[in-house]
């Protein structure tokens, strides 16, 4: 406590911090960015290893033989799907029953708040079919899930075929200690949401579904399979779930271990692993993989059908078969063996997966960065906000550190009225609330008055409100005539800085990527904005670094990293669809990114905007 109680040392420290504040802040920012970029450098990362004892050394033999038959079933499924023009419920029920499963169906309907133009759906009606293979060797208190989506067109037929093939094969085996649920869900995530809510008796987003007739035990782990061709070149693992939640790292380890054992090419973010980490291209490859993961996580959307399982504390991942132009192909039997092995190991679990990490980033499938390594990058950015706040506090003259003794402290400055601070805060938040509620509420009106579709109406209203928020400072000023003192903006900025720091800190804990990306763009403006900087230039910088523009950059960067660069025009269209998807994700699955941005981050940015135009 010496530092806190000795006035001389305190004074020295405070003086150092205030005098060198700007250089320290710049250093921290650069160090934060550098630290983050360094995370992809292989010597700084850890090699993945299996932490779960039950899945480690136990021997498992994979003997799944029936790949060809599974493909035949898949073709049969495709034919029935075409005939019915949707999910062939009766055929699926019959087929699953003939394979010895207890089969149940669940129907659901869902009306979207506005039409989803990407997937072309508005009123959704569908049926989930699932069969339960009861565990012969245990009291059936736990379960595993294997799911395959029944998608539009010719996609994923092979996945359903393989699922049915595995069901038949698993039925004949005796070592299952957990129920295995084979689920074919319609309308991808909407069906999955209905099924999960039915299974757990919850209803978080107001969907309408029939209750489940049959249940297994509590679900321990789930895999979602997507397979659209008879042979594949590689398997891609998708981890990012709702709100940036990730499954336990052991699930990824398990997948990687079996890919190595069976000899299947495996990728993450669609990127193969490379061994030349010491070359520039090797490093940039790892960095790209990691950045893709960061961007996907930051979006807060489920990137596969597994994404909603995570909410229920169930470790889940999607496995996606990719068929590219490579020579070496893997057949369905091999994929079946891989899945068999994974389920055999999951079957051995004695407790839920919890030994390994939940907070990690992966620059490649065999390397990971844990929370202890990546948090400092965010910490370095967040500390800038605190340093600036400290500096302001000292400047406000109220700070004991500057005049520790209280003795030298001169006249107490008359603090600016609470009202002059409260007004901008309240108005900014009202704008945020408007941004959150109005787009969906006013879509009908917009459609009547303007020649746009519902989806466009929602997105354009959101953008309009967002832009209208920029006009606010002039209005707040009229309300506060004569109160725009030097003290006033300092206090307001102090409030804004602390608010932003707490906000970003909480965000980064729940979803590191989102917190880090927001910090990257918001911290510089929060740190250096004052009413005395050149107005036009600062305003331009502030707009360019506002949350909306950050989203736009993210869209372009994401496309660039996926090696599908887009033109400005397409990028803009993509940006609009991203906004509509974000709003839909919130309404359908309860993703928190849109409310966070609209209700908290955007008002916070408006506060800073207010400071710039403080008179």
């Amino acid at each position, binding site marked *: 406590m010496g530092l806190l*109680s000795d*006035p*001389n040392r305190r004074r020295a420290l405070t003086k150092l911090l205030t005098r060198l504040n700007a250089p320290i802040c710049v250093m921290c920012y650069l160090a934060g960015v550098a630290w983050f970029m360094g995370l992809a450098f292989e010597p700084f990362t850890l090699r993945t290893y299996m932490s779960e004892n039950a899945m480690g050394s136990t021997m498992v033999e994979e003997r799944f033989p029936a790949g060809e038959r599974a493909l035949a079933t898949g073709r049969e499924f495709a034919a029935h799907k075409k005939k019915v023009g949707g999910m062939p419920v009766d055929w699926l029920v019959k087929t699953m029953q003939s394979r010895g499963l207890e089969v149940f169906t669940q129907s659901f309907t869902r009306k979207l708040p506005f039409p989803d133009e990407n997937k072309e759906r508005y009123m959704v009606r569908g049926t989930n079919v699932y069969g339960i293979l009861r565990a012969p060797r245990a009291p059936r208190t736990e379960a595993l899930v294997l799911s395959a989506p029944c998608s539009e067109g010719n996609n994923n037929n092979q996945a359903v075929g393989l699922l049915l093939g595995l069901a038949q094969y698993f039925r004949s085996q005796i070592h299952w200690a957990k129920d295995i649920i084979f689920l074919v869900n319609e309308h991808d995530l909407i069906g999955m949401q209905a099924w999960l809510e039915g299974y757990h008796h919850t209803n978080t987003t107001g969907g309408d579904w029939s209750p489940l007739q049959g249940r297994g035990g509590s679900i321990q782990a789930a895999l979602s399979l997507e397979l659209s061709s008879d042979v594949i070149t590689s398997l891609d693992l998708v981890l990012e779930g709702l709100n940036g939640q990730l499954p336990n790292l052991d699930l990824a380890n398990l997948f990687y271990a079996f890919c190595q054992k069976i000899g299947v090419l495996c990728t993450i973010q669609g990127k193969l692993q490379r061994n030349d980490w010491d070359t520039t291209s090797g490093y940039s490859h790892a960095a790209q993989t990691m950045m893709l993961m960061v961007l996907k996580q930051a979006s807060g959307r489920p990137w596969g059908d597994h994404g909603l399982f995570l909410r229920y504390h169930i470790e889940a991942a999607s496995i996606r078969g990719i068929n590219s132009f490579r020579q070496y192909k893997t057949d369905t039997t091999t994929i079946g063996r891989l899945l068999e092995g994974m389920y055999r190991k999951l079957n051995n679990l004695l407790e839920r997966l919890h030994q390994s990490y939940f907070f990690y980033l992966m620059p490649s499938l065999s390397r990971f960065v844990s929370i202890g390594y990546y948090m400092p990058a965010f910490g370095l950015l967040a500390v800038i906000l605190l340093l600036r706040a400290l500096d302001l506090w000292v400047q406000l003259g109220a700070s004991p550190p500057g005049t520790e*003794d209280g*003795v030298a402290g001169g006249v107490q400055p008359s603090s600016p009225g609470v009202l002059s601070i409260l007004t901008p805060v309240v108005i900014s938040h009202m704008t945020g609330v408007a941004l959150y509620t109005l787009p969906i509420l006013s879509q009908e009106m917009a459609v009547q008055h303007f020649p746009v579709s519902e989806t466009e109406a929602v997105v354009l209203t959101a953008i309009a409100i967002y832009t209208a928020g920029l006009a606010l400072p002039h209005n707040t000023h009229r309300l506060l005539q004569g109160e725009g003192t030097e003290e006033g903006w300092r206090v307001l900025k102090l409030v804004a800085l*602390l608010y932003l720091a*707490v906000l970003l*800190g909480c965000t980064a*804990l729940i979803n590191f990527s989102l917190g880090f990306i927001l910090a990257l763009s918001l911290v510089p403006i929060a740190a250096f904005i004052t009413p005395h900087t050149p107005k036009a230039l600062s305003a331009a910088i502030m707009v360019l670094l506002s949350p909306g523009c950050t989203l736009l950059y993210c869209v372009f960067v994401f496309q660039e990293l996926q090696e599908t660069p887009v033109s400005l025009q397409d990028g803009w269209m993509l940006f609009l669809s991203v906004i509509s998807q974000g709003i839909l994700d919130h309404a359908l699955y309860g993703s928190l990114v849109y409310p966070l941005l609209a209700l908290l981050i955007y008002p916070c940015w408006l506060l800073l905007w207010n400071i710039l135009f403080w008179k």
Partner: protein
Amino acid sequence: MAAPLTLLLIVAVTIRAVLFRSSLAELIPERVEVVSPLNAWKRVVEGLALLDLGVSPYAGDVFHEVSPLSIPLNESNTSIHPSIMADALTAVALYLAVKDYNKTVFRKQKYALEAERYPLDCLELIRTPKEMYYIPLKVAMFYLLNPFTILSCVAKSTCGLNNAVIALFILCTVKGSSLMSAIFLALATYQSIYPLTLFAPALLYLLQRLYIPVNWQRSSFWLFTTQYTFMYLGSLCVMVCLSFFLLSSWDFLSSVYGFILSVPDLTPNIGLFWYFFAEMFEHFRLFFICVFQINVFFYTIPLSIKLKEHPIFLIFMQIAIISIFKSYPTVGDIALYMAFLPAWNHLYRFLRNIFLVSVVLLACSALFPVLWHLWIYAGSANSNFYYAITLLFNVAQILLVSDYFYAYLRREHHLTHGLYLKRKDGSEATLVLK
């Protein structure tokens, strides 16, 4: 001054009434930060239902409230919930108490000035009526509009009731009515044991009011002390016996006081007990429970000696210590001592860590629900994360309280020795707390 207070009360009641009708009213009572097993409304309802069925409410492990107090809650069919009334009552009591206390302080200062007891350079430390005028209102405002109080009230936690009793006790003490003070103190003790430590400051204050010096040789000192002790113990006895006759069993003793002292319920909360005792080997438990509980009561002696001239500040310190170290703390307890902070705003210039402490308190309050979510719902974090924040929160509270303590002593020091201290060689000196 009555008009602003009325306005404040109306605003506070409106906020609470709105929240009672919003969807938050179902969410907040489930938060571990806001309710503890001792004061959860759900448990009160359960206990009363058992009582209605003719079963002892203490039969299960649900109800830990002393019964006669919660019975009036049963007849709460009125539109305004008793917890709102309790909050309003607390605020008014604190308002009146602080108003009266400020008068006393000001009178004392005037006498001291007339007797020229203050050094000349201390004039800027003298408190003016102008700055003291709004303090009572600020105290009421700090209590009523504090988010912690609002949360606790919306959760219908009976913590508000405890706070009201303590506030009434302070009011009676400040007004100098020793009988009522003893009765309310006994009531507070009867509810949750810990206010026992407020006995010392109350006695000191009443002695001071009657101009009886704290002197072991004086018979008047002993006479009054005995009198007050008897009133206190007598009313405590009456209350305990009353509870016995109401249910005709002594079950409540182990179920209420045993529950508070032996901490069998390790549900996470913002206190320091749960994690520690969840981790501990069973055979050390008794020893550490004793250590932890003695810790709460221990500070009474040194603080009473150091602050024997300033009993109201001592009351503030004791309430703060209780709310930090008690076995099942909730945010409602914190709100009570935070309400006193405006009363000490003349100490502001001597506070050293107020910025750091308020930032940490703010950040921790935001992080509690986040880490709880990550631990319980997302399953990705674990109890260590939550406990780390609990620790930090409590460290910040301790820093806050000790900062105020230091500032208070410092001001008193300056009032006797002059503001601008000189070293022996004539250079400017600084005070260092070691």
